[in-house]
């Protein structure tokens, strides 16, 4: 170090504020008994499709809400809301992720005490959303078959922060060299506890295992 230069110890984590906001949000959600699921994936992987399928499967037994943060969402909040589900479009202003403060503001617009499960469709990418705690009770991601089974190698953080992995578009499996077995092996190395759900939002095959998992997680949270 050059003479005259002094070293100042800082020792501060970035986004400590966001982590605190996320904890506050989790406490708020526990108080209102609302389970928040953070759903992440690349654009086009099937986030909106999975939300629609999940809503269709669970609407009879759980009171659901949706927060839409994906910019290129095919079915936006109005469409979800047209099905009688309270839904909110979050204006992210081109942001690459949503953080706990943004989610907290969105939740304030929903009738939380009348909701058991809120699904957050995060911004579509596998990088940035992995870095920010949203305050969710659980995080899930989707990898679709056309994206390839090598994605855990390219986006290890995303695969290591999620509780569940939905492998969507399995109706494409026979057309590709995607191997669910190879994917599972790669995922296990990053996140041994991760739950895997190969399914197709198109054909409906495999959806039940996913909704069963979600139903169990919500029940455990509410008890």
């Amino acid at each position, binding site marked *: 170090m050059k003479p005259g230069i002094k070293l*100042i110890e800082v*020792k501060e984590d*970035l986004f400590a504020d966001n982590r605190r906001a996320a904890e506050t949000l989790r406490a708020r959600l526990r108080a209102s008994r609302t389970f928040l699921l953070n759903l992440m994936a690349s654009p086009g992987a099937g986030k909106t499709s999975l939300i629609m399928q999940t809503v269709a499967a669970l609407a009879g037994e759980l009171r659901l809400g949706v927060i839409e943060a994906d910019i290129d969402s095919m079915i936006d909040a109005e469409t979800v809301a047209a099905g009688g589900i309270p839904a909110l479009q979050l204006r992210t202003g081109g942001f690459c*992720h949503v953080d706990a403060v943004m989610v907290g503001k969105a939740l304030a617009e929903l009738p939380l005490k009348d909701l058991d499960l809120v699904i957050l469709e995060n911004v579509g990418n596998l990088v940035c959303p992995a870095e920010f705690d949203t305050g969710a009770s659980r995080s899930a991601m989707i990898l679709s078959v056309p994206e390839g089974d090598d994605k855990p190698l390219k986006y*290890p953080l995303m695969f290591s922060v999620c509780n569940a992995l939905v492998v969507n578009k399995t109706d494409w499996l026979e057309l590709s060299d995607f191997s669910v077995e190879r994917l599972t092996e790669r995922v296990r190395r990053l996140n041994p506890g991760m739950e895997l759900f190969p399914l197709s939002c198109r054909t409906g095959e495999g959806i039940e295992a996913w909704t069963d998992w979600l139903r169990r997680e919500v029940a455990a949270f509410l008890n």
Partner: protein
Amino acid sequence: MHELPVIEEILAVVLTHAHRHGVSRVVTINLEVGSFSDLEDAWLQRYFDHCSRGSVAENARLELIRVPATGTCRRCNHVFTLAAPGTDKTGCPLCGAVDIVLDGRRGYHIASLEAL
């Protein structure tokens, strides 16, 4: 990507500490970055140069220290440094088990400042 919010956070923390210590110029910022973070070093510096204009941190250099992820083997408890992301080699180097607990792969930590 999220280089911009990261930079705004860094600048806020740096200016708080610079002010507290009454420094006239920040020369270097030592920033530890988890090895699974996907930030572009060049973009970070460029955004920083832009955002810090007119402050005591103008022209400061971001010194990025990549902190490797560590793994703990669940079979033999061996603790080891992980290979860079992008390879399939994440098993335990001692016993070969793939049942490992990963740690220290995300996040940013401002370790220190060098200032005048």
